[in-house]
């Protein structure tokens, strides 16, 4: 065993600050990286497994009335299994809460083989007065097992707290823009409980599992269209048909977890880059500090590899301990807050850890390998010098800048500080980049919320009318009183399961007679007459949901294509005359689409593509739409010339619920962006919380080397009669100026990096988040950086006080 090993404990003690810094850097980076990415990976594995494990549906449909057994059999013969899954939306009240909430009753027996559920607490309901509610809803309403809730007028005991696999995200309607886990919940009850609580209310929903579960979306969409045809052929009134990939309650959470992982990978990647910077500086500092020892060892015929091995022992040990501690901390303490980021919003199944080799390599192996490689290369490169060069401490490259002549007119203190600066310029350059990355981290964490806030404002202001009504099928507002009455009759007939017995012969005949004159080829007419004035100001448009390739990632951006009239009142500034194609500014920015470019839009359900040449760019940076003349869009999509799918209206309209998909208002757009803000909020808080200690460690480690390599001269100063505060002024002020200049000077670079990273990270999220950083935010970053540095400077001043006078008196050639 090499006798040098005895030096290691002493070296550790002597350079405790340095090794502690490396250890903490490892600890924080790995804890954060492995904590989050492992949690996200585990959640993703759980989500991915649900499809098979919990038998999540491939699609579901709903009919106006209970579908006939022959209809179901006909659908099943096409190649799938249908599970009856009737639900009922009923009011729910919680004791001590005045709000009436919406509870979707599910018969737990119908979920035995499809869309299965998981219990977190309590047990399955057994009696008809027992109920199990969604976990997130219970958390938001402080409900515990054993509590009593009133459901549709019945007192029911909360027997269990559960999550249902097709309601990871509590969306009341698939067309809703936001989830609602506060006043909406799913509820599992027994068959008797369902019958007793739901009363006569029923939503006739059927869950389908395909025989061939490997079918892709396009094949599945075609299959589902055939299913719809079969059901209509069997005289069923289809009210809903949703594919699993279009079911927001199922895919929203999965998408969120997937997209967030990219963000965390980028953040951990930035940390790894920062660590590489630090290792380079620390290795050089170690070699300089140990120059005489290395020279002596070389002169004593120690081999270079023995010396390299000796100097790699401590960094390696510290790295290993840091990796182990980081993983332990990440996978225990930090995994929980990371899980809660999602489990507080989404009704996911119980968490279980799944090891990811990729995450381990990314968060642990790469940083450790970086430490080893940087240290090894740094030592190997320096060991090219002769033993004498080491003994004479002539291994540090003395650049021309350090021998610059400074103007005599400059006071001694300024010149001295400049000399410190020039001597340590390479360290300060690294410090500049290190600070830039830390500021980037901070700014990234701080700016995202205001950016989303601004996005919310833009989204809201982009809604050109007070109401944008999207329809499931064209529905005319304008009609004669007879037409309105006739369609009311149709609705009445459709809503009656057995018209003859329910309405009586006369009632049935009256309704049937009213409908006889209806033109089957014409668009249906709204049952309510909204009045001439309201109808006149409402404007028809066509709309289609298509996709366009994103630039950075190999993914598709969902966009909305509007077909509007040339003389639109609501889109007055959008000139779509003469076949012009106008794209939103957001779309132009995110997908780098410019005037004159040809864009290819894809329908993900049919794989059809449409090529369009861009004529103009319009709207805000949040606008991800494409605008065409209505007729042109109808022609493009092969629709009838008079087809339309929405109304823009400044007046609130009464539109038949059966035809209404959604009502977009400026407020609803704002609320949806607010939800985005909420989902980012906790995560960004964690980013900032990590950025500050990382900043402290980094600045401490990088500036410590400046003090360390000057310790001998600091000691001289003390011998000459300098007070500690005078020495601090000479050394620490030079560092302070560098840190402050780096903090302020790096801002343009940091802004550029933030733009780059946010663009990269946000590419997978739908929409275009334009980075806009308020000057006050930049001031905040500088202030946090300066405050963190103040702590470091205080440590340095304390260390300068501790520099021994005897350092100067050591005989050193």
């Amino acid at each position, binding site marked *: 065993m090499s006798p040098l090993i005895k030096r290691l404990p002493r070296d550790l003690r002597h350079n405790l600050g340095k090794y502690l810094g490396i250890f903490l850097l490892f600890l924080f980076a790995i804890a954060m990286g492995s904590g989050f990415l492992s949690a996200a990976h585990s959640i993703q594995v759980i989500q991915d497994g649900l499809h098979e494990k919990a038998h999540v549906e491939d699609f579901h449909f709903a009919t106006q009335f209970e579908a006939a057994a022959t209809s179901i059999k006909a659908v099943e013969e096409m190649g799938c299994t249908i599970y009856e899954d009737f639900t009922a939306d009923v009011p729910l009240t919680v004791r001590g809460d005045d709000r009436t909430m919406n509870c979707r009753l599910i018969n737990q027996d119908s979920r035995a083989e499809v869309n299965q559920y998981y219990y977190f607490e309590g047990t399955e309901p057994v009696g008809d007065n027992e109920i199990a509610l969604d976990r997130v809803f219970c958390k938001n309403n402080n409900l515990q097992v054993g509590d009593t809730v009133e459901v549709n007028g019945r007192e029911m005991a909360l027997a269990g707290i559960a999550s249902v696999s097709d309601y990871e995200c509590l969306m009341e309607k698939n067309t809703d823009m936001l989830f609602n886990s506060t006043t909406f919940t799913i509820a599992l009850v027994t068959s008797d409980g369902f019958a007793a609580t739901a009363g006569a209310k029923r939503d006739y929903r059927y869950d389908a599992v395909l025989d061939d579960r490997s079918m892709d979306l396009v094949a599945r969409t075609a299959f589902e269209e055939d299913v719809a045809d079969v059901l209509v052929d069997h005289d069923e009134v289809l009210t809903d048909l949703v594919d699993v990939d279009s079911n927001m309650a199922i895919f929203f959470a999965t998408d969120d977890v997937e997209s967030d992982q990219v963000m965390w990978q980028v953040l951990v990647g930035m940390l790894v880059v920062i660590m590489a910077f630090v290792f380079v500086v620390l290795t050089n500092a170690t070699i300089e500090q140990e120059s005489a020892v290395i020279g002596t060892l070389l002169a004593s015929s120690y081999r270079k590899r023995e010396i390299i091995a000796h100097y790699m022992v401590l960094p390696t040990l510290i790295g290993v301990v840091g990796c182990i501690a980081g993983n332990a901390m990440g996978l225990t303490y930090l995994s929980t807050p990371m899980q809660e980021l999602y489990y507080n919003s989404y009704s996911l199944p119980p968490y279980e850890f799944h090891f990811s080799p990729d995450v381990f390599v990314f968060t642990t192996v790469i940083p450790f390998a970086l430490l080893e490689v940087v240290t090894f290369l740094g030592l190997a490169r320096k060991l090219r010098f002769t033993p004498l060069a080491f003994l004479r401490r002539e291994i540090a490259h003395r650049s021309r800048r350090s021998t610059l002549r400074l103007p005599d007119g400059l006071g001694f203190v300024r010149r001295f500080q400049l*000399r*410190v600066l020039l001597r340590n310029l390479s360290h300060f350059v690294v410090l500049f980049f290190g600070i830039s990355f830390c500021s980037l981290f901070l700014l990234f964490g701080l700016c995202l919320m205001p950016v989303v806030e601004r996005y919310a404002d833009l989204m809201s202001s982009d809604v050109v009318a007070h109401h944008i009504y999207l329809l499931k099928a064209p529905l005319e507002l304008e009609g004669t009183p007879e037409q309105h009455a006739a369609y009311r009759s149709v609705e009445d007939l459709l809503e009656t399961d057995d018209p003859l017995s329910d309405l009586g012969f006369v009632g049935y005949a009256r309704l049937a007679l009213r409908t006889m004159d209806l033109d089957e080829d014409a668009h249906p007419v709204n049952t309510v007459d909204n009045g001439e004035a309201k109808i006149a100001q409402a404007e028809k448009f066509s709309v289609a949901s298509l996709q366009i390739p994103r630039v950075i990632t190999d993914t598709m951006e969902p966009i909305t294509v509007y077909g509007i009239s040339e003389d639109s009142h609501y889109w007055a500034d959008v000139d779509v005359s003469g076949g012009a194609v106008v794209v939103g500014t957001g779309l132009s920015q995110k997908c780098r689409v410019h005037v004159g470019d040809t864009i290819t839009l894809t329908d993900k359900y049919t794989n059809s593509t449409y090529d369009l040449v861009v004529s103009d760019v319009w709207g805000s940076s949040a606008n991800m739409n494409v605008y065409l003349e209505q007729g042109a869009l109808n022609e493009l999509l092969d629709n009838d010339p008079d087809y339309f799918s929405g109304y823009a209206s400044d007046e609130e309209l009464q539109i038949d619920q059966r035809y209404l998909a959604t009502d977009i208002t400026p407020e609803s757009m704002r609320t949806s962006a607010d939800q985005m803000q909420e989902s980012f909020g906790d995560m960004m808080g964690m980013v900032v919380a990590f950025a500050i200690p990382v900043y402290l460690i980094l600045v401490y480690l990088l500036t410590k080397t400046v003090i360390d390599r000057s310790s001998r*001269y600091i000691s001289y100063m003390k*011998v000459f*009669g*300098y*007070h500690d505060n005078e020495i601090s002024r000479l050394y620490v002020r030079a560092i302070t100026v560098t840190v402050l200049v780096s903090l302020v000077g790096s801002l343009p670079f940091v802004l550029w990096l933030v733009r780059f990273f946010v663009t990269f990270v946000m590419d997978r999220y739908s929409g275009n988040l334009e980075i806009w950083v308020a000057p006050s935010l930049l001031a905040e970053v500088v202030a946090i950086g300066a405050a963190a540095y103040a702590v470091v400077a205080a440590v340095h001043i304390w260390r300068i006080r501790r520099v021994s006078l005897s350092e100067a008196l050591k005989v050193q050639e």
Partner: protein
Amino acid sequence: METTSGSTPFLDIQGLTKSYGSGEARTEVLRGITTSMNQGEVCVLFGPSGSGKSTFLNLLGGLEPADGGTIRVGDTQVSSLRDRDLVEYRRRELGFIFQFYNLVPDLTIRENIEVTQFLSKDPLPLDDLIRTLGLWEHRNKFPNQVSGGQQQRCAIGRALVKNPRLLLCDEPTGALDYHTSKEILELLERVNREYACTMIIVTHNDAIRHMSHHILRLRDGALAEDTLNPSLVPARDITW
């Protein structure tokens, strides 16, 4: 106390003791040193390695505290000063010259001298001093660009520029060749003459005793010799 000349001594040391370690490892480095020096004297301190020369210098310089005894420099009772006052004492009264110059490598010759000029309220004129030291041509060079002798001249300038009353020189010629050593000794002699500062030179070079007013020799922490030199020889005439 009075010196051999009868006046009040500038430097008065009484029963100075210093030891390191404790228990069995305790080593007595200085064992009750008592001596005194007049203002403007050049005192040479000899002694074999481990005799306590450097410790003696450190105690005079206020770099470490004595275990016992007193040191008075001018009106200052050094042995009773607190840390902050010791800094003031070094700042006001002392100049240090080291064997290996201990220049700051990233400061020019001029800037190295300015390091201590900055501390003094009444420094010597910098340019005149640089000329006196024969460094005018080299004033904007860095230490590694000049010879060892020039570096030691610079170190002397650095010690001298704040106009100290006591100059402590630890082997000032120890790292220099014969001719350069003689140049340095001549310079020290001139500095002593022109600026009238008291000088204590720690050395192994016995020849330096001829240019010194006062000769001290330490052996095992005790004074083995404390004599005055009645016949000074100019530095240029001494040989070894």
